[in-house]
């Protein structure tokens, strides 16, 4: 390499100048100081790296990993809930919700974000302010159920607003209008108190668990196991690499014994009323339908219920959150009379010739008790007593029996005990007895109280489910199955051998209630013998209600019915809160029983049609077999489709 030529004149000119000061030597000491300073500076720098890299590498390594390695939860889908025919009652749907990662949050972005996502800016700003005291990693939920437009906005603005993070979740989709809300229940984020509960020990904070109803009872079945994915993220939270992945285990589907066809009919029958309906298959204890009104919308609970919605439910004095089918503890009224009749006959206190005269009331222990029929029933035997629901007849029976014999049979029919249904928070009601009174009130039992209990009043209370179970087991000649909501659910059989003559007599009575112009004629159905019993229970004494028209003081109406009389297949109990008269409860039971029988007829016809088509297909000549063979399946499909009730 040759250096470029030098302008000799210029160089001469400048280098001719003598140095102004000969201080090169003079500066040597100072240059040395500079050198030492440089050495000190470099040692200072190296000491800094020594401190970071040699003394504390672990500390910083952990920080570096915390920066880049994140665990991402893969939510496990919850099992679906199906009806007895496999129709979906509760499903999941994928939903996206937006959270703000507060480590990247810039407050001047909020206006644009609010505009892009159609949110209220002031609301958003308030939320951000409220979260200021939270730890940085606690991200701020902004919007749930993102629309495709929202997702497009977030996707296209990710570079500008790194704080936008979309979370994918499986959300519960419950039936509309609060249908079956009490049976299904709802899910929600695990609460602080539940975290301390050993039953939920295996769940972490933030887990979405069943809170009520079937969702709670079968939470372990329905809930899957969340998976986790360890990912490497960059400074914008974009996933760069997946280190390892534990896939989610989906929850198991749960098949209920509920028949949607019956459920819908029962729901419609209770429209605009408060109360409950329970339909059981007395042969197995399977719950075919269960309704409680008023109801609530479980979809509002899906993750977090809004405080406004919660207040609305809490302020409703009708308590929509109570499952009246298993939690309403009310006096059974006249529905108790067949049990008193059974008690009288079985204990030998009365026989089938026992007759009383009903002049419209009777005096016991110095107190006058009315019959519901002012004019009186005249001469009343057991059959007429049940059919006409004569109070005076049962006052006499009860008076002869005494409380403890009545209590024994009430207990036998399952009153005063939990039925053991697979739902949380079931109530057991009260069966009064001398022992019960002594234990709870430290008082002796007064014989006058027998009179009230004999017609299902007084301290006696039951739930609609207990009523359905009691009559179901009675209709099955003393075989009580445990009511249950899931296929293959636990069923313990309780048996009692009744005297067949006594049993037939009382069943005849309940048959007469519906079919012999008794109090339950509204439950009658053509072509089938429906048996049942009405009940009207007072909410307050007659003296108190006199001259008041308050809805809450109206009598509760009951009806319990089963069908057919021989080999019963369904028992339905209806509780119509403040329904005034029992005759208003009877049609509810009738509708449900009718729906059951109609469906049975329909299915039989369908089966016959299928058999006919199948046998026709067998006779088709082989040459045209292909085209004709395809017909049956089409025909079956269309016959199903032409049954609109089969898919409500």
């Amino acid at each position: 390499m040759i250096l470029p030529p030098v302008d000799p004149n210029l160089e001469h000119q400048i280098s001719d100048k003598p140095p102004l000061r000969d201080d090169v030597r003079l500066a040597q000491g100072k240059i040395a100081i500079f050198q030492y300073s440089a050495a000190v500076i470099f040692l200072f720098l190296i000491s800094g790296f020594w401190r970071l890299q040699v003394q504390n590498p672990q500390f910083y390594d952990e920080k570096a990993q915390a920066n880049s390695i994140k665990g991402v939860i893969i939510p496990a889908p919850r099992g679906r809930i199906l009806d007895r025919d496999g129709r979906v009652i509760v499903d999941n749907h994928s939903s996206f919700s937006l959270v703000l990662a507060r480590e990247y949050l810039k407050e001047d972005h909020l206006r644009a974000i609010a505009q892009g996502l159609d949110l209220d800016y002031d609301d958003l700003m308030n939320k951000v302010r409220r979260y200021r005291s939270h730890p940085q990693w606690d991200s701020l939920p902004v919007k749930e159920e993102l629309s495709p437009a929202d997702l497009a906005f977030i996707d296209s603005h990710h570079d500008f607003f790194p704080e936008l993070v979309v979370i994918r979740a499986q959300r519960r989709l419950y039936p509309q209008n609060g249908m079956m809300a009490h049976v299904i229940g709802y899910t929600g984020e695990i609460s602080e108190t539940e975290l301390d509960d050993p039953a939920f020990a295996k769940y972490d904070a933030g887990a979405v668990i069943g809170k009520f109803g079937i969702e709670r009872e079968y939470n372990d079945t329905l809930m899957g196991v969340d998976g986790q994915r360890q990912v490497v993220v960059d400074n914008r939270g974009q996933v760069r690499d997946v280190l390892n992945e534990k896939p989610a285990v989906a929850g198991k589907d749960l098949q209920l014994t509920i028949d949607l066809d019956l459920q819908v009919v029962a729901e419609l029958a209770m429209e605009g009323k408060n109360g409950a309906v329970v339909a059981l298959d007395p042969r197995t204890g399977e719950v075919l339908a269960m309704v409680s009104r008023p109801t609530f919308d479980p979809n509002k609970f899906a993750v977090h219920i809004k405080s406004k919605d919660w207040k609305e439910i809490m302020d409703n004095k009708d308590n929509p959150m109570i499952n009246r089918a298993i939690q309403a503890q009310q006096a059974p009224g006249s529905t108790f009379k067949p049990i008193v009749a059974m008690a009288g006959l079985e204990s030998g206190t009365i026989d089938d010739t026992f007759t009383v005269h009903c002049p419209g009331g009777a005096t016991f222990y110095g107190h006058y008790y009315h019959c519901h029929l002012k004019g009186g029933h005249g001469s009343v035997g057991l059959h007429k007593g049940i059919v006409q629901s004569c109070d005076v007849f049962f006052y006499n029976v009860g008076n002869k029996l005494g409380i403890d014999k009545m209590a024994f049979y009430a207990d036998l029919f399952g009153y005063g005990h939990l039925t053991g249904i697979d739902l949380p928070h079931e109530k057991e009601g009260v069966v009064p007895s001398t022992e019960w009174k002594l234990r709870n009130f430290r008082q002796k039992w007064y014989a006058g109280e027998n009179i009230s209990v004999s017609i299902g009043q007084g301290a006696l209370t039951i739930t609609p489910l207990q009523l359905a179970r009691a009559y179901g087991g009675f209709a099955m000649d003393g075989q009580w199955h445990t009511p249950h909501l899931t296929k293959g659910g636990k069923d313990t059989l309780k048996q009692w051998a009744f005297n067949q003559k006594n049993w037939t007599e009382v069943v005849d009575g309940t048959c007469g209630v519906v079919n012999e112009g008794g109090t339950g004629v509204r439950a009658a159905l053509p072509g089938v013998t429906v048996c049942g019993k009405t009940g009207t229970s007072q909410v307050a004494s007659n003296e108190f209600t006199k001259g008041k028209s308050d809805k809450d003081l109206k009598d509760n109406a009951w009806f319990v019915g089963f069908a057919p009389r021989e080999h019963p297949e369904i028992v339905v109990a209806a509780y119509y809160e403040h329904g005034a008269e029992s005759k208003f409860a009877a049609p509810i039971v009738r509708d449900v029983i009718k729906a059951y029988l109609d469906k049975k007829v329909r299915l039989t016809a369908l089966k016959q049609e299928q058999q006919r088509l199948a046998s026709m297909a067998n006779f088709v000549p082989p040459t045209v077999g292909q085209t004709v063979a395809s017909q049956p399946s089409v025909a079956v499909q269309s016959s199903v489709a032409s049954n609109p009730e089969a898919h409500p």
Partner: protein
Amino acid sequence: MSKYLSTRDIDWPLLIIALVICGVGVLQIYSATLGTSWHSSWWRQILYVLGGLFLMWLVLAFDYHSYLHYVNALYIASVAALLGTYVLGQAAFGSRRWIPVGGGLHLQVSEFVKLVIILLVARYLAELKTEALEIREMVVLSVLVAVPAVLVLIEPDLGTCLTYFAVLVTGAFLAGLRWKYVAAIAAVALVGFVVVASPLGSHILKDYQRARIVGFMDPERDPQGTGYQLIQSQIAVGSGGMFGKGITKGTQTQLRFLPVPHKDFIFSAFAEEHGFVGVVFMLAAFFVMIMRIVQNAQTAPDPVGMYICMGVAGLLLFHVLVNVGMVAGLMPVTGIPLPFMSAGGSSVWSSFLALGLVNNVRLRRFVN
């Protein structure tokens, strides 16, 4: 004799060390920009280094005295060019530091003005007739340096502005500034720092500049803002450990938790991927480089040559101290590049031009 300059007399060890640093720099730029839109930076950097070598060769062609002769003109041109960045400069990275020169290149004028400052200080101090530097002369020189420095400061570019004063302080120290003045300047600097750090400082410095200094003193106070860079840089350096995570394996660098890992924070990326061992090697290279330049100052033919070499040495030392110190969390974030290593043409070229000046002095050491 002076007319027969030989390439043999060039300070080859100095040049080789500079090229080694450049080579490590290119490798680190390659690693730090992997998979990003700046990935072309590594081969651009090679072109810049080759261009720098050519510029160094050009500088060697003329006696350094001839540059000193035109220092007035260069100074006026520098001030004019700095003013020009206000007209032509592009707002990039939040500061108006660059002027476009065509071909997609943008020159950072303030980087080249550093060389003019070195020449200016050298000539001014060499032409002094007094034994020690008097306060009046110091003030005059300070004002001369301050004019371009203030223009750079308001760009805003605090870091480069401070490099001018590094050259001034080195020169003044060598010229024999009296200790009482040194003490006075130190006191002023201290007061200035306190004022800047206090809320009053918001009237003097821009918010982000103040934030950088405050953030340095207490990085946890604002972990998302200025403190973020310091914290992430320390995490990168610390997690590198003794031997580093390996090239292209640094998570802080590759996942972009580290800000601008191929420019101002390149040493942080290097420390993460090569560990303490690599850091010691690179700092040793810089130390040897500066010591070689100081040695050239000692053998300079005249005071003005000595001042030039020492100006370059002081400038490089300041760059290393501030940049590497910032990376290790020992210095506030001022945003100046690491010479020969950080990606960027202006920085590489001005560094090679400075090496050219040192070699220029060396080549002519036997003239007198």
